[in-house]
């Protein structure tokens, strides 16, 4: 459920020519960590909570996004656009209350961006993640900060949904293949504001590929990653429908200490917004405090963010804004206290997220994205 999808969703071609996510997909690693060009859309998503030795806390987000505009390139030129690659890098400086983020967009070109099993890298310019065996090396260079992390999976990859397919809506193919590393131990360095920090913490990685996902009535979503201190993790996503109803295809996954995962249906959990924060940039009201209830697990959590201002405010007409930030969780599990950390993503609060192209406007042109600055 990643917001970058919206960037180019509007220029999606008829999906018929791409492969649909269907049950029975056979996962093979490490190949499945890299590109799946036969699917139209694909993303790699890293988030995490990190601390310096001094205890100073940071959150980070590094995402790579691929979207095919055509099944085949128009010509042999590497500049001919088949895939667009977008990326976001964000840093949450919890202590100073600062949130920094950058975006970029590239085509594959002569190697400007890509996901290449041969070199083990997914990259967009000098933002990259490279697999070195089990480990992944993350690097993001921006004008304001430079982040270098090594993340090591503490559990095997989790495949969400049922039969290798995570359903998002009614109808064939309204689904994705969705892989996560729910607990990554992260160490690395951050150069930022003239200082250099040695960081350690826990990260989360999502990798999802699909063609044609949500339907028109689905306005936006709230996605939680929760890493509890009892060494279990929870992913919950609630899809909001027009009129305020919760979409029946909302779902979640519980990952046990052993690494075994358990699929959760919409009815298995309840998400209740408590406090809202008004974005000065977009005016959107984001719930930044939530009550989370998973009766089947006897789990009740309160989710709160240590930094309200973690909105990636799209500056362009068609670029949607979304909130993606570090979270703290506190509550009770089977009667005992439990805490955790994780990330929350909220979309569709400034205006509905449109995932499929609106009908052509008079003048014969469909809405399309404006590239980022």
């Amino acid at each position: 459920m990643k917001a970058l999808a919206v960037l180019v969703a509007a220029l999606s071609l008829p999906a018929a020519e791409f492969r649909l996510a269907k049950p029975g997909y056979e996962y093979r690693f490490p190949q499945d960590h890299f590109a799946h060009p036969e699917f139209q859309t694909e993303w790699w998503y890293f988030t995490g909570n990190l601390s310096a030795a001094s205890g100073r806390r940071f959150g980070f987000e590094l995402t790579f996004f691929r979207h095919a505009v055509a099944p085949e390139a128009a010509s042999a030129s590497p500049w001919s656009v088949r895939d667009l690659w977008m990326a976001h890098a964000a840093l949450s400086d919890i202590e100073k209350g600062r949130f920094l983020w950058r975006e970029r967009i590239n085509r594959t070109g002569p190697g400007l961006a890509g996901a290449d099993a041969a070199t083990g890298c997914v990259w967009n310019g000098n933002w990259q993640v490279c697999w070195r065996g089990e480990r992944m090396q993350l690097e993001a260079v921006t004008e304001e900060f430079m982040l270098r992390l090594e993340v090591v999976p503490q559990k095997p990859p989790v495949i969400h949904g049922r039969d290798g397919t995570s359903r998002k809506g009614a109808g064939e193919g309204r689904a994705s293949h969705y892989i996560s590393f729910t607990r990554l131990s992260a160490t690395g360095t951050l150069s930022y504001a003239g200082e250099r920090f040695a960081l350690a913490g826990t990260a989360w990685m999502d990798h999802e590929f699909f063609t044609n996902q949500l339907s028109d009535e689905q306005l936006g979503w709230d996605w939680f990653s929760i890493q509890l201190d009892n060494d279990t993790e929870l992913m919950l996503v609630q899809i909001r429908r027009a009129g305020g109803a919760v979409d029946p295809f909302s779902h979640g996954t519980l990952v046990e200490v052993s690494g075994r995962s358990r699929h959760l249906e919409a009815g298995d959990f309840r998400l209740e917004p408590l406090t809202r924060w008004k974005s000065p940039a977009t005016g959107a009201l984001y719930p930044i405090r939530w009550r989370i209830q998973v009766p089947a697990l006897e789990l009740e959590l309160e989710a709160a963010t240590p930094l309200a201002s973690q909105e990636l405010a799209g500056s362009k007409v068609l670029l949607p804004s979304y909130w993606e930030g570090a979270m703290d969780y506190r509550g009770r599990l089977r009667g005992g206290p439990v805490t955790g950390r994780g990330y929350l993503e909220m979309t569709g609060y400034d205006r509905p997220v449109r995932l499929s192209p609106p009908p052509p406007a008079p003048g014969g042109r469909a809405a399309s994205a404006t590239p980022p600055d």
Partner: protein
Amino acid sequence: MKARALLFYRLLVRPMLAEPLRTALTLLAVALGVGVVVAIESAGRAAAGSFRSSLETVAGEADYEITAAGGLPEELLAKLARLPVPISLAPRVEGSGRLAATGTPVRLVGMDLIAEGGRAPVRGQELFEALREPHSIWCGRAVATQPGQTIRLVIHDVAREYTVRGLIEGAGLDSTLILDIGAAQEALRKPGRLDRIEVRLPESASPKVEARLREALPEGVLLRPAGARTEENRKMLAAFRWNLRVLSYIALIVGAFLIYNTIAISVLRRRAEIGLLRALGATRGQVGAAFLAESALFGALGAALGLLAGRLMAEGALRLMASTVDTLYATSSPAPLSFDAAIIGLAFAVGLLVAVASALAPAIEAARVAPVEALARGRYHWERRLAVRRNLVGTLALASAAGLASLGPPLGGKPVLGYLAAVLLIAAMALAMPALIDAVARLNLARLAGVETLIALRGLRASLGRSAVLAGALATAAAMVIAVGILIGSFRETVSLWLEQQLAADFYLQPEAATGAERDATLDPALAAELARLDEIAEVERFRAYDISFNGLPAYLAAVETDLARRWGKLRFLGGQDREAILERLGTGNYAIASEPFASKHGLRPGDILRLPLAGRAAEFELLGIYTDYSNERGYIVVDRDVLLGYLPDPAPTSLALYLQAGADRTSARAAIERACAGREVRLISNAELREEALRIFDRTFAITWALEAIALSVAVIGMAGALLALVIDRRRELALLRFLGAAGTQIRRLLVGEAAALGLLALVAGSALGLLLALILIFVINKQSFGWTIQLHWPAGLLAAALGLVYLATLLAALYPARLAQRLNPIEVIHEE
């Protein structure tokens, strides 16, 4: 203050107004002089301003750019993009083309419209959709007026339809077309290559960032400050502009003679008045300052008028300059002419400076007038005692100094000493002028030329100071006309001979998109082979040239088919080098020959090693020889075709030279070639046409020079008219006396015209001598140091005779009105007046 202003008005302005015609003529002379300077300066700035890369205005200023001769492999961009340093990179593919409909040259720029979407002028909703169409363009207003239009573009030798997706706005972008980078590579035949990568650093970037970037670059790739190309073009243009600028000051120098003359006459006439003022208690300083102020008033008014005149002339000057810049330097679209504070300041600075400097001597003279002269009875006729002999010594000294200066090296790349020599020669002539007039006036020509001439000559001699200045002004103008005439005539003859000798092929073939100075348009590589199969054709020679940068100056890197050049070509090497031996070696490896302007600009000699960053590799070539070439001022480095293909594997030729079979019919050959080229946008030019075209370009290049000469000459003639007018007014009494003595009105007129004729003749003789010397300096010092051409001295006799005849005629014409005025003087009134 008020008293001083009142004095200034009464004593100096009023007399000026009392002689409106003479005052107007002096003002006109100054205005023309200042106007030319202003016009050339502002036109030069506009012409140079046009080099500003249009993308600088589109995408903002970059900090650095990465380039290499022949372009960069695009993989370099991918490699640099992944460097872990916070830089942003923007690839550029550039070239030129023409609008098929009008032939207007346009600039093509390929940029990564996706990555640069936010910065580029091209943005908005249609971008992605448009990118799916291969022939989408975004363009300036001179190309299309609304999106959706279809335009036909000729790029290289191909014409094709493009769809306008949007308009771009911005200064200098009117003739710019933007394509997505892949489309640009395809259209410009540069697959896999980038011309430049622009680099932006964050403001906070440490020097380490640049160092990391530099480290990552392969050898043979240049990292230089952004806008270096613009800077290079400007630098290349600098010599051209500098020389034009100097030429533009000739009119002002001539004007200076005339201001000097005007003020000197003013001082002369008012000697008694000055004496009176001194008797009334005016100090020397006051008197001197008054005359300087009078001159400054001329300077200021002249400058104001000159600004207007300059504005008018600048349009024409810019047109002439722009066409020269296009043909000889780089395609440009001139920036708009601007008359800002700097130009206005320049006008007043040169106007006042020239005025005050030329009035200095007469003002000092005025300050020296003793108060006792007021008491001298009657009209005090004063004539400066000209130390003729001492002046001749001065002449010799100045001339020797000029000789020494002409031997000096260029300073800062500019022939400063050459121009100094020219100025010294002019000064020497000016000093010699009184002696010359004196000598001629002493000749007893009465029997030969009649009594009027005798009186006329004696009149000149009697007012030696004044007539010498006049003759000096005219001689200077005439000398410049002669010098420039000889220079241009010699140059043209040299070029013409060179063309005759050099252009060996029967036909030449160029892509239609080729524009004046750029060499980026090429022909379909298959065409050469197709043409070679024609029965009429004996040989097809492929020539390829690249625009490169060498030691901070633009140049061409060219490839020739060495064996064909040996067989057919007629290259001539400097210093009597053996052509055969050089060409034999050229084809065998990393050797090069260079054209003369290139070698002299960079101070290269045979045996030197040329280091070139070629397509991301460092290449070295040994310079074998330097050949004469007048085709381009940038200059050529020429290497063997196969050798260059090893570095830059683009087989497309820039032009083809076609040699016909012996005895082949030209007309049918032409038809056959045209058939073979059908469907391709090419220009087929015969040997004769090319030669004609070259000379036409040559003449156009020097049109502005002639214009400057003409204006300088006009200033001299105007000055002549004004001075003769003053002469008539001052000599009214004498002329009236002649009438009393029985002279007829027509005789008086003849007397005046005779004086002008004598003065004109003297000036022309002196001017011719001076002009010849100046021509030598122009050809062998100034031209050689500025442009590096070797020019054979030729005498454009007809041209010079015509020019001198014209000058003479103009001088006589200038005398007509004053002469009529003299004829009409009523002797009775004049005598009574006194």
